């Protein structure tokens, strides 16, 4: 069975994401650090089943505390897993930092720009098409609490591929 890891900064909605995808009922709360251990669940895709793992939030892949250590260890243990990187659209920079770190380690990634509604409220505009073309991986705006964008996330899992960080740097260079 294909494995999917849900990764992202603390407090971006990974657990809400997890519950939506698997129908499980893990504890969600509105403060960082709710998930310090991992939770496993299963999801039926259209052609195959997936095992989904809700990973504790981490800012980077250089662990600073217990929860982050768990996150990094999980990633290293699950070589070949697919990563859904959940990032807070209103705090996109630190999210992309983690995305790039995961890409750098060679994992196939799908980016979920969660809390899209919050970003809109804050008047933050994100050019998704441009982001997609720079990263060359699927980028989907989502609202985990209402379920918006989930179908696209699941559908785009097939398109997730590992990309070279050098290519990305080159494409960023072209834009400037």
């Amino acid at each position, binding site marked *: 069975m294909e494995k999917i890891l849900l990764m992202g*900064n603390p407090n971006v909605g990974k657990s809400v994401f997890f519950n939506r995808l698997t129908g499980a009922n893990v504890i969600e709360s509105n403060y960082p650090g709710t998930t310090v251990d991992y939770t496993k669940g299963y999801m039926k895709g259209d052609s195959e089943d997936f095992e989904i793992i809700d990973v504790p939030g*981490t*800012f*980077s892949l*250089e662990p*600073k505390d217990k929860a982050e250590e768990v996150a990094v260890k999980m990633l290293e243990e699950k070589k070949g897993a697919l990563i859904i990187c959940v990032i*807070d659209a*209103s*705090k996109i*920079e*630190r999210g992309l*930092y*983690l995305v790039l770190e995961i890409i750098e380690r060679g994992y196939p990634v799908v980016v979920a720009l969660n809390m899209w509604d919050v970003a809109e409220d*804050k008047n*933050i505009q994100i050019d998704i098409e441009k982001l997609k073309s720079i990263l060359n991986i699927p980028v989907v705006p989502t609202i985990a609490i209402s379920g918006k964008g989930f179908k696209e996330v699941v559908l785009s899992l097939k398109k997730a591929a590992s990309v070279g960080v050098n290519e990305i740097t080159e494409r960023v260079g072209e834009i400037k």
Partner: protein
Amino acid sequence: MEKKLSEMNYEEEGRVKSIEQDLKNKVAGMGIRVGKNLKMIIKHPLKGPMVVEVDGAHTSLALSIADRIIVEVKKWKKYY
């Protein structure tokens, strides 16, 4: 004026001037790097952590970390 991040006052704004080398990667994941604009939001008493605003998002830092980041303070605000 240059000062440590930990010495910033409430609502004071500044731009990150330098970060100790071994700390750079650690805080980069929280959106703090050289050239970024910061605003002090909360300073907890008794050598507690502080909360700063970066790119419209709040992030908290331990005093020991904030001591090792130098900022160029933009404007000086009066406190009563």
